[in-house]
């Protein structure tokens, strides 16, 4: 009953690849943003604007985000056409395209736990480490990272899990090219459309259990490092 078709396996592979790449990229991108939001010295107005911008994917319908990315990254869009003029491909209906979309779409899920962890950490530990001769990178790896590891684990897990659940953005920007942009959520939709409920059920149940386990882990960690609140 749990036999999966090659298409199913391909979708699982694309989905996992997308979730892993997205998570890695988000950790790199979200960390400085979260640090700046938590501890930056920028004027309050600018900070609020960035905070709102980061949170935007939480409230926008994914189709809106997907639509604008399609316009931007597609062959007629400013980014897509520039890439084409350099002899490269535009990014609509490509894996790179949905990767960019995923990163933007899951940004708040990575930024917010990190921001919370950094705010709890405060400036003091880095000031002390600085006085002890540690430069910026040194301070990050020897003080900030170990002291906020709960925040990093939560951010990574949420970014990963949220990417698994993506649908609207990918549908708009990526379509359903097997092995390239056809992720699980899209394939489930396709199976259901084709009245293949058994296949849809197999994948849905698998995703449901997986998502539950992931969230269970997050909340367990959250209780252990009760510095991070969601």
């Amino acid at each position, binding site marked *: 009953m749990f036999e999966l078709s090659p298409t199913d396996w391909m979708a699982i592979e694309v989905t996992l690849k997308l979730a892993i790449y997205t998570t890695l990229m988000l950790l790199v991108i979200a960390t400085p943003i979260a640090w700046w939001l938590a501890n930056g010295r920028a004027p309050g107005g600018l900070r609020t604007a960035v905070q709102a911008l980061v949170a935007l994917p939480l409230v926008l319908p994914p189709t809106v985000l997907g639509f604008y990315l399609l316009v931007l990254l597609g062959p007629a869009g400013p980014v897509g056409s520039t890439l084409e003029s350099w002899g490269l491909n535009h990014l609509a209906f490509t894996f790179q395209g949905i990767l960019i979309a995923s990163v933007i779409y899951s940004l708040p899920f990575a930024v917010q736990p990190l921001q919370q962890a950094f705010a709890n950490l405060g400036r*003091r*530990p880095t*000031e*002390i*480490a*600085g*006085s*002890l*001769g*540690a*430069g910026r990178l*040194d301070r990050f790896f*020897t*003080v900030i990272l*170990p*002291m906020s590891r709960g925040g990093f684990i939560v951010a990574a897990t949420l970014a990963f899990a949220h990417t698994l659940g993506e649908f609207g953005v990918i549908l708009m920007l990526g379509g359903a090219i097997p092995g390239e942009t056809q992720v699980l959520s899209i394939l489930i939709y396709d199976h259901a459309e084709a009245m293949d409920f058994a296949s849809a059920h197999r994948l849905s149940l698998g995703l449901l259990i997986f998502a539950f386990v992931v969230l269970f882990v997050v909340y367990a960690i959250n209780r252990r490092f009760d510095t991070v609140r969601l």
Partner: protein
Amino acid sequence: MSQSVSNGLRIQARLERSGFALDVDTAIPLEGVTALFGRSGCGKTTLLRIIAGLEHPPGAEVHFGNTVWQSGRAFVPLHRRRVGLVFQESTLLPHLSVRSNLLYGYKRTPEPLRRLHLAEVADLLGITELLERRADQLSGGQRQRVALGRALLISPDLLLLDEPLNALDTQTKREIMPFLARLSDKTGIPTLLVTHAPDEVERLAHRVAFMHDGQIERLEPLRDALARADSPLFRDEGAVSVLQGTLGEVDAHGLQTFGPPEARYRVPSTPGVSNGAGRPARLRIDARDVSIALSPPQDVSILNIVPVTIEALDEAPGHHGPARVLATCRQDDGQTLMAELTRLSTERLDLQPGTRAHALVKSVAFLD
């Protein structure tokens, strides 16, 4: 105060925040302990942060001896200033052991610059037994000693202590004071101590910078700060005198002499404290424990009766109104002794500047 001003720590800074303005132009000698004394909100901590490089107000100038720390566009970041920092709350890195905390800065200090090493610093601060503990298993006092040790182990050019005793209870504070007092003598590292506690200044500082409303009103040796009736150190807890002298032998009554023959005290020797004869020590005397008599009284239980000359009579600090007078007296060895009297008494005895009298000292306390 032997170093010339150009070798000191020079700071020139203006900073305006909502409801607060800092305007400082000063030079602090790089020798011994300088207390930065003032009420909370007067800008002490902000000034300390500018010196550390944690704040960089535009246009500020910070020079450490001949080294530029901040001037125009030049700015040396904190991790290159070689400044030891200790704050009031615990700042130990909780994910590291006491040993790793202590060595965090040491490992990052270039080898030729390491003058202090783990064993001697741990010994100086009495933390040798704690080395293998986790940072979060320490008491408040232990944590502050480890924080001090960690700062010392970068062999800093300057030690900045921001109310390091403030979060501790009286008992713990009393435990740590001797360690702090030894620090600058033993290591020779110039120290800036931010505090609002007069007893810390009296005990630890060689000179005081009085801060008020974002400005340094006066920078003077501790001795001078304790010799004037209007000293801000006396404002809340009344006037005190700190006498410096040498300890003598312990007699059959368990009493030990202190000071030269012309201003000799006899004080109970404290067992346990290293109180060898010939050791320099300091006595703290509350002005309220000092009375004045015109002739030396004979039948009196008070042991310490010291001849003095009245130098000045001012209204006593605090909130007593005009009923109490602070008499600034000069002992025959030149040191100042403060006595707090009622105005009635000064009138009865007809005390005037220049009057010869005897100071009756009811109780004294050793500072070190």
